[in-house]
């Protein structure tokens, strides 16, 4: 694997939680592709119903709730390399995004956000007259 896939627990990011349990930072790819940005986030265990994506005053927030699905801590794990809990991450988005056109979908535990560029931010080819 080309990158570390270590699951990182949230420390200072985001608001404090009122619910118990762990919260993790999802790994993301951010890809710019001509007319839009794509954000891919790993949120294994989350479903379309359990994911909240919001955009407010330039802050794009992903919150995926993941219910515990394994025995509680202290119950005979033979190997325990990762924890199960919510995913939370937020991004500051510049004004180059058309917020009304943001779309999100989830498949196989990967959340995909489509962030179309605002008209003013799109690349235009300027014809040079001879």
């Amino acid at each position: 694997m080309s990158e570390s896939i270590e699951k990182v627990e949230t420390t200072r990011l985001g608001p404090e939680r009122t619910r118990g349990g762990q919260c993790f930072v999802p790994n993301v790819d951010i890809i710019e592709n001509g007319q839009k940005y794509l954000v891919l986030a790993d949120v294994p265990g989350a479903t379309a119903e359990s994911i909240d994506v919001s955009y407010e005053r330039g802050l794009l927030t992903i919150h995926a709730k993941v219910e515990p699905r394994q025995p509680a801590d202290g119950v005979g794990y033979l190997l325990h390399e990762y924890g199960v809990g919510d995913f939370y991450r937020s991004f500051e988005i510049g004004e180059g995004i058309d917020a009304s056109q943001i779309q999100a979908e989830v498949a196989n535990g990967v959340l995909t956000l489509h962030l179309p560029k605002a008209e003013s931010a799109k690349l235009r080819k300027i014809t040079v007259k001879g």
Partner: protein
Amino acid sequence: MMMTRRLFPFLPTAALDRDLGRAVEELFNLVQRGPIMRPLGFPALNIWEDGQSLMAEAEVPGLTMDDIEVFVVGNELTIKGNRRPPAETKATYHRQERGTGEFTRVVTLPVDVDPDKVEATLKNGVLLITMPKAEQARARKIAVRTA
């Protein structure tokens, strides 16, 4: 361009200085967080048991059953797979944290399992492998008779 103090003045270029600085910082972060102490492969595994079975779970977001092979030989569980990069051509990556590529993870199980009855399910990027224990390894309830 902003001028910064160089950490390693003996290096020939500022870029090299910055790269080494980052590498050292990452190493420190790793040591602080702890994972460098653990032999970790991909995918990370949780394994637990009940009287009848061993359960192994792994988070493999983005993979489908076609990308994963699971097999048990003797008391060794092997998970093999390939995580493909996003199918975006001619794109610019601003962040790339999601790893891609082939992986193999082999773990030795503490008890014998029945290889014919091993089942694997994949749901929302979470792989769950249920391995019924071999007959002699199962928990038995012993009837206690009064003497």
